[in-house]
């Protein structure tokens, strides 16, 4: 079987991890000394797809601190605006991928049922 569903699965996992990290960033928007984090799963996923060889790993997400300068005297470097935006984007991309998964399923269903 082609790895489309596995790739979509990895993307869903990556977006879910990003959503958790963004939620934690926003939860700590006023915590003194808090350092915001960001998630990248696209780079490793793209690499895995480019290398071929079937299914990518189910989780390619890496969490790293953002390099943003502290925007408050208390050392907190969380950017509430950009993270709220990212959260909306993450949710919409999640829904788009769910649609893609469902599309794939409906193709499979058609080919099974004829």
């Amino acid at each position, binding site marked *: 079987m082609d790895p489309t569903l596995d790739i979509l699965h990895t993307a*869903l*996992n990556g*977006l*879910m*991890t990003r*959503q*958790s*990290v*963004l*939620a*934690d*960033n*926003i*939860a*700590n*928007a*006023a*915590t*003194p000394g*808090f350092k915001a*984090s960001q*998630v990248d799963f696209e780079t490793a996923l793209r690499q895995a797809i480019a290398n071929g060889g079937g299914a990518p790993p*189910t*989780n390619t*997400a890496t*969490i790293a601190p953002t390099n943003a300068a502290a925007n408050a005297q208390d050392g907190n470097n969380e950017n*509430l605006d950009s993270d*709220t935006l990212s*959260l*909306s984007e*993450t*949710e919409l991309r*999640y*829904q788009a991928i*769910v649609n893609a*998964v*469902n*599309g794939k*399923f*409906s193709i499979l*269903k058609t080919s099974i049922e004829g």
Partner: protein
Amino acid sequence: MSDMFSVFGVSGSALDVYKTWIDAVSDNVANADNTSPTSGPAFQARYIVAQAVPGGPDNTGAGVQVAGVNYGPAGGVEIYDPSDPQADSKGMVRKPDIDMGEQMTALIIAQRGYEANLAVVSRAQSAYQAALSIGNA
């Protein structure tokens, strides 16, 4: 793989912290004009100390918690008000040292933070609902 619905726990912890903060600010403002005799302490404003909670599924962070409370100075400020029944022989009473501008700023920050986390909850809910619809095509 993340825990199911973990964002609710993270954002819930933040709602809890911001609410505690709003409660403290409203108590500070409510007591800002208290007077007490110079022989005793003044009302001490409460300042909530927030602290990030590490951990969570895949180490994405587990939210925030109230780590403790700092208090304003017990000395407050002494002002001259001989008409106050609590005034000492020199006509002085003690009042809390509360900066109203600082309190109102904190109130706005806490309120905005509360709203931001409420928005996160509704965003997460949409994503989870999408996840639950996988296979419904």
